[in-house]
C-alpha cells in the first residue's frame, strides 16, 4: 500500500484589460467587486464571502455546487491570507481549499498588475501543493476521505 503523496503544480495566466491598474486592482481589493468575478459562478451557490483586504487579513469563500452540476451539494471552502500588498502593483496570498472537511490544496498565489500603453496586464501565478493526489491512493483511503463528503452530499440533496 502506497502512502498518500503531494503533487506540486504551477501555472501562470496572463490577461490584458483595457483599464488602468488602479481600476483592475480595485476589482481585487473591494469586496463587492471581487465577489462578482471571483466568488460567483454559474455552477456555484455562494454560502459565504468576506474579505479583509490588508496584510495579515483573511478572505473566506464557501460555496456549494448547484444541482445539475457535478456532485450537487458538495461544499468547498477557500481561505486565503494576504501576505503582501503593493497597491496597484501586486497582491500575494497563501490559501487553502477544503472539500467538505478534507484539505485538498494549499497554494501560493500572486497577482501582478503591470501598466501598459493599452491598460493593464494581469499576471496570475498559482503554485499548488495538491494533497492526496492520484499517485498512491488506494480504495480504503479514498473511502475514508470521501465518506464525509458523501455524507454531507446526501444530507444536502435530501433537503
Amino acid at each position, binding site marked *: 500500500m502506497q502512502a498518500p503523496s503531494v503533487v506540486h503544480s504551477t501555472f501562470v495566466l496572463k490577461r490584458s*484589460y483595457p483599464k488602468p491598474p488602479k481600476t*483592475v486592482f480595485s476589482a481585487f481589493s473591494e469586496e463587492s467587486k471581487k465577489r*462578482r468575478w471571483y466568488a460567483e459562478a454559474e455552477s456555484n451557490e455562494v454560502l459565504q464571502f468576506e474579505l479583509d483586504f490588508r496584510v495579515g487579513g483573511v478572505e473566506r469563500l464557501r460555496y456549494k455546487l448547484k444541482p445539475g452540476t*457535478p456532485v450537487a451539494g*458538495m461544499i468547498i471552502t477557500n481561505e486565503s491570507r494576504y501576505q503582501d500588498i503593493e497597491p496597484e502593483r501586486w497582491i500575494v496570498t497563501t490559501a487553502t481549499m477544503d472539500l467538505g472537511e478534507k484539505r485538498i490544496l494549499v497554494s501560493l498565489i500572486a497577482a501582478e498588475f503591470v501598466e501598459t500603453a493599452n491598460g493593464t496586464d494581469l499576471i496570475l501565478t498559482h503554485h499548488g501543493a495538491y494533497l492526496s493526489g492520484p499517485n498512491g491512493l488506494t480504495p480504503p483511503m479514498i473511502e475514508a476521505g470521501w465518506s464525509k463528503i458523501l455524507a454531507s452530499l446526501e444530507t444536502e440533496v435530501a433537503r
Partner: protein
Amino acid sequence: MEIGRIFDALGDPTRRAIVDRLRQGPLSVSKLAGPLQITVTAVGQHLQMLEETGLVHTEKIGRVRTCRLEPTGFLALHDWVQDQRSTWERRLDRLGELLAETDET
C-alpha cells in the same frame, strides 16, 4: 471518462446509497439489494452505471457477484474539483466582463 457521466451516476439517491454501503467494504449484489429494498435486477442496472463511470468494480466468483468501490471515478471527481487552472481562467474571464461594464477609465 466524461465528468458529467460521473455526476449523473452520483446524482441518483439509490446509487449514492450503494456507494455509501460499499464504503464499509465489498458486498455481494444480493446483500446490497436487501437493505435498499429493491430487486437484484434493479441493483444490477445501477451497478452497471457505477461500473461504467469507474466508481464501482464487480467480479463474479462462482455464482456470486461481488462489488467494491473503485478509485478511478472518484479520482476524476477529485481532479475536477482541484482543477484550479480552469477555475482561474473562468474567474479572469468574468473579471474582464466586469471591467468592461464599468464606466471608470
